[in-house]
C-alpha cells in the first residue's frame, strides 16, 4: 500500500487536532488541548481503486511566539491549511505559512479548510478575504470538526492530490 505524508498547519486553535480526531476516530471535544511539537496519526483512504495510507502530521499551531518549524514539513506530499471561519486573524497566519511553504516546496498540493462552519452566527470571513490566498475553488472546503461536515471530503481530496503529486514526480 502506498503511504503518504500530509501535514496539518495553521494558526493556533483553528481546529487542526479536532479535524484529525474527527477524521481518524470520529470524536470531537469542546475542550481545547493545545498541541506541542507534532503528533502523527494514520488512516487509510480509498482513492479510485487504490488504498492510500495517510500519515497525518498534526503540527503545533503558530502564534506570536511560535513559528512554524519547517523541518516537520519535509517529505510531505500534501498540506491541509486550516483557517478558523470565526477568526479573521487566522487568514493572515495562513497567508504567512503559504508564503514560507511555497518558497521551499512549491509543488506541494494544498487543501484549504475553513473550519468551525457550525458557528454561523460568529462567522467573520468574507469570500474576498480567502481569494488572496490564491487557492483553487475545488480545493477549498468549509468544514466542522464538531458536526463532521465536509471533513471526509477535505481529506479525500487531499489524498487524491497526493497521488497526483506522485504521478508528477
Amino acid at each position: 500500500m502506498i503511504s503518504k505524508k500530509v501535514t496539518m498547519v495553521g494558526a493556533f486553535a483553528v481546529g487542526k487536532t479536532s479535524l484529525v480526531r474527527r477524521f481518524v476516530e470520529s470524536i470531537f471535544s469542546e475542550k481545547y488541548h493545545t498541541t506541542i511539537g507534532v503528533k502523527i496519526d494514520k488512516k487509510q483512504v480509498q482513492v479510485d481503486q487504490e488504498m492510500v495510507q495517510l500519515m497525518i502530521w498534526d503540527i503545533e499551531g503558530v502564534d506570536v511566539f511560535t513559528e512554524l518549524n519547517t523541518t516537520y514539513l519535509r517529505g510531505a506530499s500534501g498540506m491541509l491549511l486550516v483557517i478558523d471561519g470565526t477568526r479573521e486573524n487566522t487568514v493572515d497566519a495562513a497567508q504567512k505559512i503559504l508564503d514560507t511553504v511555497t518558497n521551499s516546496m512549491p509543488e506541494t498540493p494544498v487543501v484549504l479548510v475553513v473550519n468551525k462552519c457550525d458557528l454561523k452566527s460568529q462567522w467573520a470571513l468574507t469570500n474576498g478575504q480567502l481569494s488572496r490566498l490564491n487557492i483553487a475553488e475545488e480545493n477549498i472546503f468549509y468544514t466542522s470538526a464538531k458536526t463532521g461536515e465536509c471533513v471526509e471530503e477535505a481529506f479525500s481530496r487531499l489524498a487524491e492530490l497526493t497521488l497526483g503529486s506522485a504521478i508528477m514526480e
Partner: protein
Amino acid sequence: MAAENIKSLKHNLALVEQGALLSNLFLRLDIAIFEYDNGVFCALSSLPDWFDNLYCQQMAAGSGLANDGYHLEEAFPFIENFLFDAKKIWQKNTDDEIKSGIWTETPDPLNELNLEAIAMRCGERSLLLIVNETKHFDIRRKVFQRARDLALSNERLESSLYLHQRQLHLQIEDLYQKNQSFDEIQNNIQDESTAILICKQDGSVELFNKALIDIYAISKDQTPPQKSLLKKWSEEAEKQYPEIRRILATGQHWEGEFETEDDHQRKKWVRMMIAPMKSDDDSLEHFVCIANDISNIKLSEREIERLIQLDPNTHLPNRRYFWNQLNELVALNKKTGTCLGLIYLDIDHFKQVNNELGPEKGDQLLKTVANRLRQSLKKDDFVAHLGGDEFAVIIDNVDDEYMMSEIAMRIQENIARDVVFDDLTMNVTLSMGIAMYPKHGIKPHILVKNADYAMYHAKELGRNQYRITSPELHQKVKHKIQIEQGLKTALEKNEFRLLYQPQISLGSKGEFRMEALIRWHHPEHGTVSPADFISVAEESGLIIDIGRWVIETACEEAEKLNKAGYNAKVSVNVSAKQFQNGQLVSEVEHALNNYRIDAEQIELEVTESLFLHNLENIQKQLNELKDLGVTIALDDFGTGFSSLSYLKKLPIDILKIDRSFISELPDNQHSRTIVESVISMSHQLGIKVIAEGIEEQTQLDYLKELDCDYVQGFLFHAPMSSQDLIQLYQSIAPIKNKASRTKKLSNS
C-alpha cells in the same frame, strides 16, 4: 602470564562496570540510546520501560524485538522522516549533532509522551538518542495552554466589539441620514453600553450617552463633557497613530485603540471609531465617536506576555521580560530623577555541576538558587533568570551603592547555605556585579554591560563575591577581554615576534647564546608584554599553539644564524601546559628536523612550578628531550619553593638565578648568601648557572668573582630583533668565510 590475565580481567571488569554505570545513567535521564549500523539500530544501554512498551505497541505483535536489532524507522514514522537529516550528520567527518524537535506519542488515551530524537556522530560512531522530555513539557504546555486560552478569548472579545461598533455606526448613520433630530438619536443610544458622542468638527458636543460618562468618570456638575474631548483623543492617539490629525482634518474615517486618561487621571485603554457624518451635499457636518473600554483585554494581553516570558524551570521572568522591565524602569527613574541598581549574578562552577550531576540536578540547583534569590529580596524587587546560570536583579529607587552592597551581601549569605539532593550535599556560591543608574550608564544596555563586567571581575578575583563597577574596572576588564579575543587570532594574523637577548659567557670566549622572548603587537594596544597575555593564553589553552610557534621560530632563527656562520644556542621558554599536553617532545623533534639544526642548539627553559604537576610524567618527558640532545634550563630559580633536591633528580643542565636576587647584589647580605650557595651547589652537581637582569657593573664584578657561567641583562644588550642580532654578531665576530661553521669563535 597469570599477572597479565589478572590485569586484563581487571580491565574488562572495569569496562563492564563502566558500561553498567552508563546504562544506569541513561535510564535515569530517561534516554534510549542506539547505534545505527548498516540500516539497523542496536541499543547501547538498557532501554527505559516507556520505550519498550511503545516500541512493542508500534511494531506488529511478534516482529518486535528481533535479534537483528531495532527498526525504529518502521515503528516511528517520525524517526523515518528524521533519518534524512540524521544520515547527513552521520556521514560527516567530524563530530556533530542535530535535534529533531518535539514529537508526541500516545501509548494510551490517558498518557502522552513528548519525545525528541538527537542524531549524533561521536568518535566515528552514529548514535541516535530518544529523549523523554515529557516532564519538561508539562510546564511548557501549561504555559502555552493558558496563554493561548487567553489570546483566544481576547480575540473573540475584540472581534465582537469591533462588529458591534460597526453595527452601531450603521444604525446612527441611518438615523442621521433620515434627518432624525438629535433627540431621536439620543433616545436610541441612551442605554447602549458602548460610549457614543456626536460632535461638530471643532469638537463642540451635540450629544453623548451615559456609557461615555462611565468611561470618563465625568462628574455630574461637569456634564456636558468639554468641547475638547475630540482634541484630547486625537492627542492621546497620536503617539501610536501619527496620521490621526490629518485623517480627522480631512473628514475621513478612523479606528484604533489607545491609552486615555479619565477625569480622575486614571489610565484606561479604549477602542474607538471616529466616523464622519456628512450632509446630502457631502460636506462634513459631524463626527460620531464610538468607544469601548478595553482595559481588561489589554491587561490579559499583558498577562499573556508575562506568561510567555517566564522561564519554564525557575518560573522567573526570562531575558526578554528582563529587558522590557529594565527599559521601563530606567525610563521611569529618568522622569523622577531617582536611582536604580542592577545586579548581574552567575552561579560559580555551574557548568561543572551540570556536567557531573546531570541536567536534572542542574535544573534543581537553578530552582533552589531562584527561590533563595526571591527570599533575599523584597516583593517589589525584580529578579530574572536570563538563561543558563545567569540571573539579574533590579532594585528600583535605591539611595546609593552602599545599599546595593547590603543587598548583595544578603543574597550572598542566603545563597551560601548547603543544597541537599537525595544523596549528596553541596555548597553554592554566586559571583555578582553591580551597576547603578544613572551613575554607571544612562542607557540600559550600557548598564547591563557594566554590571556584567563587574561580575566577570568578581569571578576573576576568586568568585563568591560581589564587585561594584567603576570606569577603571570597566577599562581593565574590557582590556582583558580584548586581549583574550585578540589572542585567538593573533597567530593567524602573524602578530607575534620573537626578540633575542644575548647571554654572555664569562668563561669561554665566543660562545653564542641567547634567550628568545616573545612579543605581541596588538593592532590597537600596541606591544603587549608577555606578563599580560601569557597567563591568559595558559588559561584558554592557546599557549599550546603559541608555544609550538615559538619553538618553530626559534629553530628557524638558529638555522638562519647557522647560514650566517654562527653556531648559536637559542633558549626558549615553555609552559607547564605544553608538558601536560603531551605533544612537546614530538613538536621539538619536528622543528629540529624541519630546520635541520643540531638539538644542542635549542635549550628549553622551564620554571619550578612545572614540578608541581605529575612529576613522574614530567621527568619522563625531560629525559626524552635530553635524549634528543636538547638542554634544559631551570628559570626563575629561587622564587618558588626552590628545592635543590629537584636538581639531583631532574636532568637540568643550567640554572637561572632570578633577577630579584641579582638586583640586590652585591650589598644585600641575604641575596649574596643565596647566590653564592646556589652557584657553588650547582657547580658541585655539574650544573651551570646564568644570572639574569644584570644592570650594574658591580653586579657583574661580583658574579665574576663567584665563577658564574653566564650573564644576561641590559648592562650588555636589550632584547633585539633577529636582524639586529646578526648585525651585532657580525660586528663583534666578523665572519669572512660563511661556510666555516664553528661553535666557538676561539677555535676558528
